[in-house]
Structure formats: structure tokens, C-alpha cells
């Protein structure tokens, strides 16, 4: 582990930056679009290009995938993008190197869109959790999604560090999550709740089924304190609309990865994709 325990931790209240996710949700609560892409895909140095393209296209949040060799919660599309990104040489260290300065870039348009990093816990552990949080803060990452770090383990071992650096940890709920556990997740979340649309891995669902609608309505009726974004199976205007009717917005992943693969990373290509989702 590469921890550096002697560093001076910032406090969340030191006022250097307001968390962009929190500030976003305080301004806007409807039809939020969060788009996922894998760092290092299609090419190693595409990260900031895609990030800038998504910002220009008007997405509300961006989720950057930290590629992993064994992404068990993801389907074939995202797994393949992870594999290609790793072949391209992507790593957490490289990703942070690419993100340094993106918030203050004087030559191009600075990145202001909230950024989340999504990935699996093992690469983060090897990078060192404290180092990871410090670098997130330094480059302007606002939150993380680590699907194989369950809430209880997060609270036991890592919550204090994340809090010290002001990095939000976004938790998932699924149709099988009990009301009691949803209440717990809501109480312990700060940012938004990631509603997995159905019992599935990413990219394996098409359309919004009746059981999914029933689940969306059940959660809506719980009046949670956190906003909710629906992910998995959101791949076109229709599914985006359905999600937005039942939550504060939606997350699109596999469909965008396929679009990048087929149509490239130009601002026009990214704008075209976002337009088809938002229509």
C-alpha cells in the first residue's frame, strides 16, 4: 500500500471547493443526465476529450470508469471497454495525471461538470485509499462509485477518509434491496442514490418493464432525502424519459461506449449521442 499517513488532511469545511454534485442537485432536480465512459477507451488519451465533449453537449454529471480486469457487475460492452483500456495502458495513476489541471485549464474550456469515478475496490486499495481520496480532491473529482465496496465495509473502514477529503461515496440500490436497507443507504449517502433498474449487469436490459415501473414507484413513494438516478438499461430517449418520470434523472453507460466505438470521440459525435438521449 502507498499510504502516506503523515499528510495533513483537509477538513470538509475548509471551504476550498463546494462539492459539485451537491451544488448541482441544489440547482436542478429533474431530467439529470449522467453519462459513463471508460478511461483509456477507445484510446489512452481520450479522457479529457470525451469529458470536454460531454460538458459541451450539456450533460449534468460524468462518470469515468477506472478500468478493471474483473468487472463482475458489468456486462460485455463495458467489460470489453475495460479490457481495451487496460491494453492501452490505462491505470488510476494515469487517469489522475490526465485529469490534473482540467478544472483550471486556461487554454481550453475548464471542466466544471461534476465528475465521479466508478470502479472496483482492488485497484483503489493498491493505489491506497487515502492517496486516492487526496488525488480525487486535488484533480477535482467529486464522488466515487465502487460497486463491490458494500456500505457496511465502507462505513467500517473508509468513510472517515472519504469524508475528510470531501469525496462523496454513491451507493447502489436494486429491486431486491429491502426498504429497511434503502433507509439505511439513504441515511448514509450524501450526493445521490444510484438506482439499478433491474436485477442485472450493465448493458443487459432493454426497455422498461412493468416490474421495473413498480419498483420505481415504490422507491419514489419512500420520499428519500437523497436524489435518485436510475441506471442500467437506459439507452435511448424512451428509457431516459421513463427514468426521469420516476427519478431525478438517469445514467447511461453501455450505449455511450458503443457509440464511442462506432462514431468516435469528436464533439459533434458526442453531441449527437446526447441529443438522441435527451431528444
Amino acid at each position, binding site marked *: 500500500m502507498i499510504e502516506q499517513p503523515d499528510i495533513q488532511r483537509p477538513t470538509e469545511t475548509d471551504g476550498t471547493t463546494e462539492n459539485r454534485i451537491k451544488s448541482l442537485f441544489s440547482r436542478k432536480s429533474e431530467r439529470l443526465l449522467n453519462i459513463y465512459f471508460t478511461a483509456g477507451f477507445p484510446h489512452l488519451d481520450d479522457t479529457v476529450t470525451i469529458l470536454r465533449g460531454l460538458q459541451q453537449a450539456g450533460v449534468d454529471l460524468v462518470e469515468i470508469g477506472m478500468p478493471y480486469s474483473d468487472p463482475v457487475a458489468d456486462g460485455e460492452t463495458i*467489460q470489453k471497454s475495460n479490457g481495451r483500456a487496460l491494453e492501452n495502458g490505462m491505470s488510476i495513476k494515469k487517469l489522475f495525471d490526465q485529469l490534473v489541471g482540467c478544472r483550471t485549464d486556461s487554454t481550453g474550456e475548464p471542466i466544471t461538470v461534476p465528475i465521479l469515478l466508478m470502479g472496483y475496490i482492488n*485497484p483503489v*486499495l*493498491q493505489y491506497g485509499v487515502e492517496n486516492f481520496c487526496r488525488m480525487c480532491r486535488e484533480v477535482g473529482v467529486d464522488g466515487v462509485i465502487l460497486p463491490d465496496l458494500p456500505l457496511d465495509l465502507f462505513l*467500517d473502514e473508509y468513510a472517515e477518509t472519504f469524508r475528510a477529503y470531501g469525496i462523496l461515496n454513491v451507493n447502489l440500490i436494486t429491486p*431486491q434491496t429491502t426498504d429497511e436497507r434503502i433507509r439505511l443507504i439513504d441515511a448514509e449517502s450524501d450526493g445521490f442514490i444510484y438506482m*439499478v433498474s433491474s436485477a*442485472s449487469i450493465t448493458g443487459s436490459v432493454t426497455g422498461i418493464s412493468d416490474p421495473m415501473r413498480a419498483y420505481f414507484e415504490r422507491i419514489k413513494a419512500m420520499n428519500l432525502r437523497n436524489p435518485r438516478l436510475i441506471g442500467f438499461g437506459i439507452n435511448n430517449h424512451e428509457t431516459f424519459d421513463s427514468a426521469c418520470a420516476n427519478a431525478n434523472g438517469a445514467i447511461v453507460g453501455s450505449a455511450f461506449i458503443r457509440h464511442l466505438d462506432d462514431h468516435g470521440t469528436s464533439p459533434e459525435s458526442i453531441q449527437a449521442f446526447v441529443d438522441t438521449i435527451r431528444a
Partner: protein
Amino acid sequence: MQTTIEPTTSFEVSDKGFYGHFGGAFIPEMLYPNVEELRQNYLTITADPSFQAEFQQLLEDYVGRPTPLFLAKRLSETVGATIYLKREDLCHTGAHKINNTIGQILVAQRLGKKRIVAETGAGQHGVATATVCALMGLECIVYMGSVDMKRQQPNVDRMRMLGAKVVPATSGSQTLKDATNEAMRHWINNPVDTHYIIGSVVGPHPYPDMVARFQSVISQETRKQLFAKTGSENPDYVVACVGGGSNAAGAFFHYLNEPSVRLVAVEAAGHGVESGHSAATTALGKPGVLHGSRTILMQTEDGQVTEPYSISAGLDYPGIGPLHAHLFESGRGDFYAITDEDAMAAGFQLSKLEGIIPAIETAHALAALSHMNLKADDVVVVCLSGRGDKDLSTYSQYL
């Protein structure tokens, strides 16, 4: 012989599933309800007298337990110590794997599950799972790396004959690690009516503990049988091969708190520990998280899981069970790494000296005997985890 699943020892798993620093349940929320359902119920279910009665009866009448503890005289003379072989190769289906699948299918039934999913490397666990599914009339889906399907074709055929659907895992190295990923994905997609029968002491809590308890029948029988033969329940060494580590966990279980018994775990060095083609996890790995638990893991500096290699399809897994990681870290276990070549030689040696063709996995454990500096009066129990019929095509290349 009466077998009960007893509470364990100082190497007992904690409430949250940890053995020392290792274990836990690092799972996506999509799996939380399934794993939690199992965690809350497995001890109650397995302690129930009706479960125990059915489990016992199946172990005796179907699996063929107790398996013999055989004094291998000619091997003993060659090695220069007293070597006993715990004959798990004589279990129905040809390996220890069925001890666990019998236990888990009974748990799955009591949880009301209709479908079983499993992963398999060498195919032994897949065959054992397909067998108990046929026995109980449950649907069975087995994920197997497409590379492993080619090198273990007889087991693929056996699974299909038993009614299982064998699905090739085509991602990554197309071996056990990837089959495990695919089985976990299947479970994520089918959370309510499916039980995932994990075949080794790996995965999220409670799997490592549950599987170790089902396999503990091995050490429980060994103690009684050794006492009957030697007047002492305790050998000087218990030796077993470790991929994930289920036969080792079962062979060690009742000896974990007997410090006079050295526990010897044998990993696959492949072409050599430093060759870049190895599965010697404790030699090459460091702490990390894979398939739901924190353990020792072969990985790059960036935390990407490394593709392991062994001639034995059952040992080429990049991690080990968290109990074994704890045995390694605490020094309770001695870990050896045996090359393909040494293992093959040991497999031929046992065949010629004792008339027993061992699985190549087991041949790794046997090969460790010549590295252990044994004394003439040492008593050693080797867990003969499986038979070598499935490996004949590989053996024949070395004839």
C-alpha cells in the same frame, strides 16, 4: 461414521466473515440480498437435525464415505517417512468436491431455490454440482473457461450427460477466474430463484466458512482413522494442494488448533515461481480483493488481476481462500510451490508405487513430500483430493 458440522477454532471466521485480515463480503449491492439470505440462514439450516440426518445419509450411501485412510507403504519407503493417503479420489464423481455440493444443494433446497449455477476449472466441481442437481432434480448451469473445456473434455461430457448446461466463459484467460466472473454475473441476473454453489473456500462470506465446514468431514474422519491405526489422532504433517483451497481447508479443519500438526499447503508453480507462468499465489501475490473477499492475490502493481498458469486446471486460480491467506500470514501453514514437471513426476511415481493415478492437482501435494525434509519417524497425511482419469491426456504427453 457420524459427521457433524462443528463450530471452529481460533481460526474461526468472525461475524463479518474475516479470518484475521482476510475475508469479508466485497459484493455489489445486486448480490447483497442473496449473500445476506445465505449468511443469515446457513448455520441454522446446517445445524438442524433433519439436515444433518440427510447430509450424513447422502455422504454414506451416495458419496461413499468414510473414504479410506491408506498407508502407502512403498511410497513411504521411497520418501523415508510414514505416508497415509486420505482417499478422497474414491468419492463418487472422483474428488472431494462432492462433499460440498451435497451440503450446498441441501441448503439451496431449504432456501427454496429452483436453479443452481456454478463455476468450474478442472471440471471436478462442475461434475459434482451437475451430479447433485441430477440427484435432486434441480436445473444446473455450469460456467467453464473455454480453454478449460478443451483440456478437460471428459468432464464437459460428463456434466452434459448429467443434464447440466455447460456455458463457455470466453472472457480474459478463459479459465477458472473468468468462469467465476460469469457465474457471479449469472447470479446477479437471477437473484431470487438461483443458488450459486461455489466450489472452493473462496468468494464472499459465508462461502469460505460454509465450504470449509462441509469439507471438514475429511479431517474429522482422518483423526478417527489415524487413531485407530496409530493410537494418535495427530500426524506430524497434513499435506494438501491449494488452488482456491477447499480440499486443504477440509484436510486441515480439525487440526487448525493442534499446533503439533504442521499444515502444509502446496501451490502450483507452473513453469517456475519466477517464470511468469505460475499460480503460486502466496509467493507472488499480495493482499487484494477478488470475487468477494479480501485475500492474497496475484496482481499487477495497479491492482489488475494477473492471469495464473498451471498444468493443472484446478490450481490456476490467482487467489486463495481467505482462511489460507490467514494461515500463510500467521505462519500456521507452510506453503510450497511445485512446478508442473515435479507434479507430473509425482503423479507417475504414485501410479507406479501404489497403483493410484492421482489428479494432477493432487500430484502437486505429493511432490511436496520430497521437499519437506521429513524424518524417518514422521507421520504424514496427504489429502488425495481426486483421481487422475480426467488428466490422462495430459499425463500421456509425459509418458
